[in-house]
């Protein structure tokens, strides 16, 4: 007897839990399948959880008193952009950008947050015979008579459902193996790496000038600190820790050649940060993930048959300059996936669930975020000619005066705080590197620090992670081990580095039987953090580890 549920949701992250909560509380018998040992165990964010005022479909729609019940870090009341040119820093207050359509916002740590959210879902879903089951890896769709009718997993017998929601993240096996999307190409991805640095509550509030526990700030870092790699750094204040990281376009990392953890170290070693981090640098967890650049790769048609795709799996990640809207778009999309099913079921029109979902998404903030930028200013912002002119201006004597003047800085801040402009800004070196560098060079103050912090090596960072290795089963296999095909994995992989002995990918000399030496890419899959970078950068067979296996985080 094949088991059947009304709905199967794959992935118990924000998008999956949101979909499941909406389904369950409307009486649908909902099964959530999560690959980690528990929901949240494998999740990490470099972002802020937003609630938007231009949609009802936020977290508070599902859990109105979430602010009392959810494990949240600090609310983000201020957003500062630190332009860096060597040790010169110019800080611009771009809170207005962060506040665009923002009803509320919180820094979060995903392990406790997702765990809480999913436990709420489980309680609700049990009422109608469903629930959240962890340690199950969904490998693909169940296809019967040419149509998707459910899911196939590694740990359970196939299960049928009237609707399946694929919310299994950026690396979604379900969406890919259903033929709805592929891996996306190198320029369509960001890669983020992050560390969580422990810091006593008082120190956080004192160093970041916060007004008690109910206050928090977010910081962006851009300039010439990252060897010209396109992207920037971030820092969010948590209750008793800091989330510090970097997010770069993956193709820029690949072109540059420096391992991402080293670029993060540049940020951590900057005097501005050393002054914040101070005497005792207590770094705990290192993590990384791939982030889809939704502007380039969001799924136009995030469905097939009765399978709906939501969240990172569908590319629902919007970067408007430094503002990253990922989790909340996933939540909105998850809720809409549920509502599409409920509507289709109510009208006896289940086969139409896909188009209904697509329509709802288009009409929602998700559709709005990914609509082509409108307006004159936006078109100007995207124009290479205009960008070149702006750069030329800023480099000129007049431009430099402009940058040094208060009026100029105000205008610049206003421009940088404009959501439409930020959305439309091109992903160029000018935007990420040149502009902030010029600002800091002209208008910034030198920052000095006597604080010495000892950064962890990659090997130490890997050693501190928790793994449940599936001994005897390698979930990634190098198919073409020539440096030409897979050589870039050796430094783009966030847990690999030419000097590291504990990492995943290495370039080695193999001595052949005839005495010749051959350079080959060698993989030790045990330290893998399952981000998917090597799937994009190398020629590999890439799968997730089986349910309950692989890496697990403590903070996320």
């Amino acid at each position, binding site marked *: 007897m094949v088991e059947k549920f009304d709905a199967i949701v794959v992935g118990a992250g924000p998008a999956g839990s949101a979909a499941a909560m909406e389904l369950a509380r409307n009486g649908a018998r909902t099964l959530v399948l999560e690959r980690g040992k528990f929901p949240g165990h494998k999740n990490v964010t470099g972002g802020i959880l937003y609630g938007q005022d231009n949609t009802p479909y936020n977290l508070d729609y599902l859990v109105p008193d979430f602010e009392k019940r959810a494990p949240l870090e600090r609310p983000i009341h201020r957003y500062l952009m630190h332009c860096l040119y060597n040790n010169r820093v110019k800080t611009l207050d771009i809170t207005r950008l962060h506040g665009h359509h923002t009803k509320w916002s919180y820094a979060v740590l995903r392990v406790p947050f997702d765990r809480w959210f999913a436990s709420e879902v489980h309680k609700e879903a049990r009422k109608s015979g469903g629930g959240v089951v962890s340690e199950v890896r969904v490998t693909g769709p169940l296809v019967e008579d040419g149509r998707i009718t459910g899911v196939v997993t590694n740990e359970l017998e196939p299960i049928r459902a009237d609707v399946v929601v694929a919310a299994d993240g950026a690396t979604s096996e379900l969406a890919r193996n259903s033929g709805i999307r592929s891996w996306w190409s190198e320029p369509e991805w960001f890669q983020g790496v992050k560390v969580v640095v422990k810091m006593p509550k008082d120190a956080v509030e004192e160093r970041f000038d916060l007004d008690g526990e109910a206050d928090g700030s977010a910081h962006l870092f851009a300039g010439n600190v990252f060897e010209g790699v396109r992207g920037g750094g971030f820092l969010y204040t948590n209750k008793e820790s800091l989330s510090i990281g970097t997010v770069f376009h993956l193709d820029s990392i690949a072109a540059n050649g420096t391992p991402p953890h080293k670029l993060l170290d540049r940020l951590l070693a900057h005097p501005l940060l050393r002054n914040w981090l101070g005497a005792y640098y207590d770094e705990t967890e290192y993590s990384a993930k791939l982030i889809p650049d939704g502007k380039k790769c969001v799924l136009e048609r995030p469905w097939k048959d009765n399978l709906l795709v939501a969240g990172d799996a569908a590319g629902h990640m919007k970067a408007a300059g430094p503002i990253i809207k990922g989790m909340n778009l996933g939540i909105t999309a998850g809720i809409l996936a549920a509502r599409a099913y409920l509507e289709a079921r109510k009208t006896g029109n289940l086969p139409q669930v896909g188009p209904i979902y697509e329509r709802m998404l288009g009409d929602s903030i998700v559709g709005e975020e990914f609509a082509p930028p409108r307006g004159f200013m936006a078109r100007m912002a995207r124009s290479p000619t205009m960008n070149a002119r702006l750069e030329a201006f800023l480099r000129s004597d007049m431009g430099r005066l402009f940058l040094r003047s208060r009026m100029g800085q105000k205008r610049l801040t206003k421009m940088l705080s404009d959501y439409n402009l930020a959305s439309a800004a091109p992903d160029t070196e000018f935007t990420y590197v040149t502009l902030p560098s010029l600002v800091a060079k002209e208008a910034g103050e030198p920052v000095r620090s006597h604080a010495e912090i000892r950064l962890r090596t990659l090997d130490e960072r890997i050693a501190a992670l928790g793994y449940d*290795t599936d*001994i*005897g089963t390698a979930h990634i296999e190098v198919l073409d081990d020539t440096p030409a095909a897979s050589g870039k994995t050796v430094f783009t992989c966030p847990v690999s580095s030419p000097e590291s002995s504990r990492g995943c990918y290495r370039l*080695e000399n*193999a*001595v*052949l*039987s005839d005495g010749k030496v051959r350079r*080959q890419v*060698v*993989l*030790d899959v*045990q330290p893998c953090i399952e981000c998917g970078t090597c799937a994009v950068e190398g020629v590999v067979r890439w799968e997730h580890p089986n349910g309950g296996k692989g890496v697990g985080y403590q903070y996320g």
Partner: protein
Amino acid sequence: MADAATRGEPLRGGIYRDMWVYCEQKDGEFLPVSLEMLGEARRLMDKYAQDYKERENVVAVVLGHSVDGLAKQAIQRGADVVYIGDHPELATFRLEPATRVVAGMARAKDANKAYDKPRYFLFPATHNGRDLSATVLAELESGLASDCNKLYIEDIPIKHPVKTPGGERIFERTLGMKRPDFSGFEWSTILCLNDPEKEFYPQACSVIPGSFQPLDTSTGRNGTVVPYKFNLGERDLRVKVRSRRKLGGGVRLDKFPVVVAVGRGIGANPSEGMRLGVELAKALGGEVGVSRGVVTAKYPLDANSKKYAEEERQIGETGQFVKPKVYLALGISGAIQHKKGMDQSEKIVAVNTDEAAPIREFSDVFVKGDLYKVVPPLLRAIEAELKTATAAPAAPIAGGKA
């Protein structure tokens, strides 16, 4: 007399003779432990004859189908008498019919056996042997010590509130059964003794494979073969074996008294390095393991060596855990992940060119040198040393592996 024996009631003044040995066979071949037990039984009963000036027999019990051929081997290896229980339904071992047959043999009185029950009974401590020892002794209502590795027969003075309420007395011809206990922290001696109201025979134990030595095959011994007649009813056959398949899981290194571990020190000539490790392991009766580094290095190895560089042979935190008598580490630096898999070994010998390698800190013997240069002469020296030593190298701890 016979009634009491078959009804399982306690005998008084019963007659008990001989040392019986259950010789487990599989697919027509004795397990090595069966021959080891026969060897020890022979030695014990030869000494018994010397000490007590009476000869009693070593009786081998063989169950199976078409196993007559094994009788000769059992006699060669120490048995005076061989009881054969041959039946198609016994081709594959099943606990219930085997128990009935063995208990029946133990109680039978016939031309070959004029006594009530065996005096002593040895079983192999294999999965099936242990189970059988337990149920046979439950059926015969006597005592059993399991997983023994040392036996002796003596007159033993005992003072015990239940066994000797009147004060100390001597229990003659008692089998002392020694076994490692409490996860290897203690060594207990178990005795099976009569009390004033009951006689407990046979005194039985299961024997750890590898504890004893079999007799030389060139003994040219004689003996009697007794085919035992019996019937099996439906109830005896109610448990059925549907199928058997080999365990795909690879070699269990923790079953070997010697482990030779090969590390990245073989990088200069991987196939040769691996070959040296294999030779060393063979000479010492051990097996080959590898460090994680060898698994991930993906050395181009020749056909003979390839299978050793697999993850299933990896020793360490994410691999196998071993604590053999001797651990030989060739070209292994001694990273903490590897150490965790082997640092409980009794004796650790490391060969490494680097005197400062971490493994030196947890070795008993550190040989500075290139393994390609050290292992060949070491191998020759070991072979010479083994020849001068009196017995053959220890067999693997668990029987049955080719």
